[in-house]
């Protein structure tokens, strides 16, 4: 990148990096396979001479730990800490190499610390996970197309349901804060990188290491428990369950690291003048999400550790006859599990709240209420977990109090609707793909919210718990609001992240296919749930035939729509029209940096003097100017259209 080169007075030739120069995804795979094989061979040799299921669980777990450690060694994740321990710190040249300077496309396959590279890597990982999870969803819906299709059979069906759940949970947790939290947020707050760039790369590569572990579950007897992994069913499950819990342990470590990193970045690295009431709402949403994940996921991890100890060492945490309790698992799981849905939804809705002012050309309505609503949801979300356990019999006397906390969440959630609709009101509704996503969210999330109110009601939940109604409800929130928000965010930030314009027509076609298909799928599912179809059944009574057929047709429509979106993204990324630096006329800082974005984002750090929502406030420099004007930056003239490189930075 020419600017950075000029700045440091250095020449673009290889310096620094040391052994890291030879490490990349290939060596990581090799390292993982080698250490995984060694771990398998040794554990198999010493342990697996019996038919004891514990022994095969031990072999599976040890092999996976070997794989993960080998993979992380192979990518070079431990090199930094190792050298630090020896007292041999990295030089500035090393750091520059790790940031991916002058490495072209290769830096996407390394332990690269530049937040923009990590953001793109997260985006690709998310898309891969969504594709896998979506394919599994298609298999589920195909099995359920008629009451007794036996397309998968009960064993495969249960596994596919579990895998779909876990893959999608991981995908949706990372889908906003991963790509956009990493790529966009640092620029949005006027920083040159994340607080801890190496931890950033670490969190990404841990997820990459976990993906093969997760997918291997399909070949190790599957996950017969659904994604919730309820004990003691998970105690007696095949070794696929070890893959499941190992995935979650690795993922929990990754999200704790990512959470600490992103939160610290936002807390300490905002540009001068960016006070809390000038901080963009998406930054608030991102911080709420990753901050909530910090205490939440370790609880899940501990549930997985206990489960792993049960399965490999014969512990009795969830075995009632030896003093264990399935309710211990359920509590640990849901103390994480309910905050987790807000971890998914809040940043997606916050992205849409960031989008709405830009395309309504109006300030964000009631900024303070938006912040309070996010804070309120986060605060309440850790006090509602037992509404998932009304019907468990765990503590019937607590059902009333948990109904209170759950229904209280409707107040801050309602405020979010007020903020969005107040922003749209009288706005110049510019119907681009991101704005359509805002509208779709208003539709879907209200349905998700109201059906959530039914389920918060204790007696109604007794009738509906464990039925397809619940499945439809949480898809309306996690997909209808969450995934829709992520697609809106992708459409909005695509020109900044890739330097290209997203294929408009394909984007619209995909939007309508996905949204119509989505509503058809899950309204059908609401109906069969009300009529009494349980979740996670492989065949069902003929009464539910029509609803399920409708759902399956809707699901295929979503599938086609997502393929169109994939086409739009891939083709636009490769040869879309070159985007100007601020195609939407937005006022947040990320649109002030040139395309492609230089290595450290800002040549000179900006000072913020107002919030980014001053639409219609009579600032001639900011209103009514054509695309591409970046009047917010005084001084360095951002070079426009200088490079056709699609990967952000060219040599």
């Amino acid at each position: 990148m020419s600017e950075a080169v000029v700045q440091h007075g250095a020449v673009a030739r290889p310096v620094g990096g040391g052994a890291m120069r030879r490490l990349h995804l290939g060596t990581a795979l090799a390292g993982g396979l080698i250490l995984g094989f060694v771990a398998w061979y040794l554990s198999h040799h010493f342990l697996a001479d019996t038919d004891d299921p514990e022994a095969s669980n031990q072999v599976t777990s040890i092999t996976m730990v070997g794989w993960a450690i080998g993979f992380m060694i192979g990518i070079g994740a431990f090199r930094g800490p190792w050298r630090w321990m020896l007292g041999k710190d990295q030089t500035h040249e090393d750091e520059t190499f790790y940031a991916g300077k002058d490495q072209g496309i290769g830096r996407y396959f390394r332990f690269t610390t530049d937040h923009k590279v990590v953001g793109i890597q997260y985006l690709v990982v998310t898309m891969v996970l969504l594709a896998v999870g979506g394919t599994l969803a298609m298999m589920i819906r195909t099995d359920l197309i008629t009451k007794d299709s036996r397309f998968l059979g009960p064993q495969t069906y249960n596994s596919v349901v579990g895998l779909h759940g876990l893959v999608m949970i991981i995908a949706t947790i990372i889908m906003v804060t991963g790509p956009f939290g990493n790529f966009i947020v640092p620029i949005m707050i006027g920083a040159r990188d994340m607080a801890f760039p190496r931890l950033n790369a670490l969190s990404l590569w841990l997820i990459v290491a976990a993906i093969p572990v997760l997918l291997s579950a399909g070949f190790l007897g599957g996950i017969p428990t659904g994604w919730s992994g309820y004990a003691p069913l998970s105690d007696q499950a095949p070794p696929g369950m070890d893959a499941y819990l190992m995935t979650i342990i690795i993922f929990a470590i990754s999200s704790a690291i990512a959470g600490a990193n992103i939160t610290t970045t936002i807390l300490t690295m905002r540009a001068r003048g960016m006070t809390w009431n000038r901080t963009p709402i998406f930054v608030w949403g991102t911080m709420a999400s990753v901050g909530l994940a910090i205490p939440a996921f370790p609880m899940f991890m501990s549930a997985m550790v206990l489960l792993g100890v049960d399965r490999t060492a014969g512990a009795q945490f969830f075995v009632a006859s030896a003093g264990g309790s399935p309710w211990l698992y359920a509590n640990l799981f849901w103390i994480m599990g309910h905050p987790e849905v807000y971890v998914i939804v809040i940043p997606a809705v916050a992205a849409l709240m960031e989008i709405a002012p830009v395309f309504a050309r109006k300030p964000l309505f009631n900024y303070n209420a938006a912040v309070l609503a996010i804070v309120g949801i986060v605060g309440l979300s850790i006090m509602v977990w037992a509404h998932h356990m009304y019907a468990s019999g765990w503590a019937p006397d607590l059902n009333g109090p948990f109904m209170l906390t759950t229904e209280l969440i409707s107040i801050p959630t309602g405020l979010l609707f007020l903020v969005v609709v107040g922003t749209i009101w009288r706005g110049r509704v510019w119907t681009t793909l991101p704005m359509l996503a805002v509208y779709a969210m208003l539709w879907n999330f209200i349905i998700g919210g109201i059906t959530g109110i039914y389920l918060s009601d204790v007696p109604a939940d007794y009738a509906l718990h464990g039925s397809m109604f619940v499945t439809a409800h949480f898809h309306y929130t996690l997909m209808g609001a969450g995934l829709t928000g992520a697609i809106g965010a992708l459409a909005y930030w695509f020109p900044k992240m890739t330097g290209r314009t997203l294929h408009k027509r394909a984007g619209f076609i995909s939007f309508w296919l996905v949204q119509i298909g989505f509503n058809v799928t899950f309204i059908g599912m609401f109906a069969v749930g009300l009529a009494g179809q349980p979740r996670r059944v492989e065949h069902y009574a003929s009464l539910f035939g029509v609803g399920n057929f409708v759902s399956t047709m809707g699901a295929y429509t979503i599938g086609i729509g997502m393929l169109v979106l994939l086409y739009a993204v891939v083709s636009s990324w490769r040869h879309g029209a070159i985007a100007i630096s601020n195609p939407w006329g937005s006022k947040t800082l990320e649109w002030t940096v040139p395309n492609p974005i230089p290595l450290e984002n800002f040549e000179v750090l900006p000072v913020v003097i107002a919030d980014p929502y001053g639409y219609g406030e009579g600032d001639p420099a900011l209103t009514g100017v054509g695309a591409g004007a970046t009047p917010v930056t005084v001084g360095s003239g951002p070079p426009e259209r200088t490079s056709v490189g699609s990967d952000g930075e060219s040599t």
Partner: protein
Amino acid sequence: MSTSQLGDRARGWWQRRETRGIFAIWTVLTIALIAFGFVPSHIMGPPASPTMRAVEDTMTIFTIAAAPVAAIVWAIALYSLLRWRHRGDEIPTQDGPAIRSNGPATTVWLVLSSILCAFLLIWGLAEETAVARPATAANALVINVTGQQWVWTFSYPGQGNVESDQLYLPLNRPVVFHVTSKDVIHSFWIVQMGIKIDANPGESTETSVIPDRLGVFDIRCAELCGLLHADMETSAHVVNADDFARWVNANGGHV
């Protein structure tokens, strides 16, 4: 929305074009949603117990209560889209009005949502008390329910421990179920009666109901319990007291 930010036109806010437009859309949507409010209970089918009747009423009432709220959000969004839409690829040359907040609107919104929330809670607590009432009835029939992969077993301790894999219940007599499991978690669900409680290994949980309709109803397992989860279903037969006594005697018990 407040008058202060919408210019200094002489007419009151209720006379404006946009107010009327939104009101029209809101009215149509509200009526449609209220009408839709009766659909869920219709799909849930005729209730077979006071519990299920209470649940279906809840579904209807909650939908009706939510209707005007959902309708106003959609009405404002839809009206803004129809009236002020900007098409094309260029950034709109004019910004919208710089409305940053609106105290009265926010207050009204917060007060309304708090009232609705209080209503939901009070309704729910009253309903919860009501559906728990059969548990304390003096003449309650006690049935022990055991789940195991993948069958239900019912035993009647007060009737000489009669055991069956089909559930027989006398009409209009309160029933208390003590539910447990031999292996993993199952969930005991009588669909048309609106009751459900998990069967946990090592624990006994309780639920109760008054069956008030003759017929055969569906019992399904509502917690994924392994390979044949989908097949873990049986029937609940609600019969007259005489028929119930006959069934008990025929199975070697005594009433």
